[in-house]
């Protein structure tokens, strides 16, 4: 349960193609993350799968069944919205029970399922409250509760954590991943945050201007980015990209070196530069270096190195960790 196949799916808004033709297969029980910059079409793609937007072309199949022309309710999917979209006039219980009520379940079944969901999500003490009496994290849990009671074929998450503060975001990230392990249901998760994508996904779909740039496991994308866009988008801090004469020396139109694969030395190396800013995180230090010839670069060193603003350093990429790209920006 929960196989989703997209074939030549496209969407235009008033003549503007937001998503040109696109194919994608999502396997049973997979946790797939759509990631990309804002406006890349990831939310639109999710809404097409949900049935909240009409497609301009193509077909969507869920478990082999063509759902292209079916309304959202008939697709057997649940969705968690960015704004939580709870029903403000209903209690937490009422919110979680709503999909069951719509499905025509009897009172006893509804009660059992709501209580089960509340237990999984630690909401048992809040069932009588209204959404406005809850914190952001609790609201998010209610939204998830409402999604899981229906036992859908797949869950759709539309940037569900972007309204939470940083600490809560990390906690909820773990909770959702854990929920996925518990339920084993297919999940499609949209985010613009590459850290969420890296930490949660079985497979990441990187989108740019409505096109799929690359599909793969988080480490695949990290190790073997297919092109410059993916190289620049996945990984934090961003990959250093150098083009021109310096890149030609290494046999490519553009070379990319991740900050963590850059060796820093006070004596010698490939690129000489001056430290602009040193960010000390305790566990790591990020050095923003202005190099001669290769432009600004970032290096990530483990622990404290005792380097500060204004010092001269040499940077050299780890030889087996250099990414090479051709003129068109594709990986060599």
């Amino acid at each position, binding site marked *: 349960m929960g196989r989703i196949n997209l074939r030549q799916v496209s969407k235009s808004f008033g003549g503007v193609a937001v998503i040109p033709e696109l194919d994608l297969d999502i396997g049973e029980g997979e946790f797939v993350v759509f990631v990309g910059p804002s406006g890349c079409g990831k939310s639109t793609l999710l809404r097409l799968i*949900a049935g*909240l937007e009409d497609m301009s072309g193509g077909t969507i199949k869920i478990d082999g069944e063509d759902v292209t022309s079916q*309304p*959202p*309710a008939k697709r057997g*999917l*649940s*969705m968690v*919205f*960015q*704004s939580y*979209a*709870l*029903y*403000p*006039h209903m209690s937490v219980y009422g919110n979680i029970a*709503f*999909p069951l*009520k*719509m*499905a025509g379940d009897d009172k006893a079944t509804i009660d059992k399922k709501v209580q089960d969901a509340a237990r999984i999500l630690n909401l048992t003490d809040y069932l009588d409250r209204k959404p406005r009496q809850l914190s952001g994290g609790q609201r998010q849990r209610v939204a998830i509760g*409402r999604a899981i009671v*229906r036992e859908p074929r797949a869950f759709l998450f539309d940037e569900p954590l972007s309204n939470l503060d940083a600490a809560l975001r990390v906690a909820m990230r773990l909770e959702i991943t854990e929920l996925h392990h518990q339920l084993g249901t297919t999940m499609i998760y949209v985010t613009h945050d590459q850290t969420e994508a890296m930490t949660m996904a079985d497979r990441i779909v990187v989108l740019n201007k409505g096109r799929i740039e690359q599909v793969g496991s988080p480490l695949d994308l990290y190790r073997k980015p297919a092109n410059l866009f993916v190289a620049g988008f996945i990984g934090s801090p961003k990959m250093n990209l150098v083009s021109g004469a310096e890149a030609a020396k290494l046999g490519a139109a553009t070379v990319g070196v991740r900050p963590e694969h850059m060796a820093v030395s006070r004596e010698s190396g490939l690129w000489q530069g001056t430290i602009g800013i040193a960010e000390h995180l305790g566990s790591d230090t990020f050095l923003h270096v202005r190099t001669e010839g290769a432009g600004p670069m970032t290096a990530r060193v483990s622990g404290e190195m005792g380097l500060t603003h204004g010092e001269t350093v040499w940077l050299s990429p780890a030889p087996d960790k250099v990414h090479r790209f051709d003129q068109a920006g594709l990986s060599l």
Partner: protein
Amino acid sequence: MARAVSTPRKLAFTAIGWSIGLLIFFPILWTAITSFKTEGEAIASPPSFLFFHWTLENYAEVQSRSDYLKHFINSVVISFGSTGLGLLIAIPAAWAMAFSPTKRTKDVLMWMLSTKMMPPVGVLVPIYLLFRDTGLLDKLTGLVIVMTLINLPIMVWMLYTYFRDIPGEILEAARMDGATLAKEIVYVLTPMAIPGIASTVLLNVILSWNEAFWTLNLTAAGAAPLTAFIASYSSPEGLFWAKLSAASTLAVAPILVLGWFSQRQLVRGLTFGAVK
């Protein structure tokens, strides 16, 4: 950061607030007091506030000279009738504009509002002639129609503002949760919109209740509401201040009571969307 306000300042502001409140309320209070005076005391100079001969004779006189209940019922029919009819048109209109707006939506709203910018007297003659030819003069039906049309722009605007504040994602969530359009309307949309609809109803009942221009010009005896009832006490032969006051008090009392009980709802309705 909250500003610290000293006690004398607070007292001064309180005094100013009460003075302004009393100033605004004074005409109504004065009308009510005058209604309990005799005609002689009502025009006495200097006027007395409390120490006069309190009497109910004006109320008795007003009731015996003209039928209060009949005018009252006419007022109720006109104000509630026009509000009900207006809702039937305004809800779908506001709904469509709030949930599937087009690039012309703003223009349509502006156009509707622009009809309120024209002085009513500008269309008095054509409307009067239309009413005469269709036999609607001095008929409740006619007044309900006119009142509906007059207040429709305000109703649509108020409901539109209300509906627009209902997040679209909640409706989408209902759709995802398996609600059909009918269930979506019954379980999600209507409960969320009820406060907005209620305050729209209240405001429109009050506006229609107090509307005097059309009710005076389009009625004679049959369909005359309370506004005409008051006006009948101001005649060219002379003003009967005490009786006029008694009639006014009787006319505003029902709406005042309605307003008093629903003031929270009303204030919320009028400021909704303006203050988040």
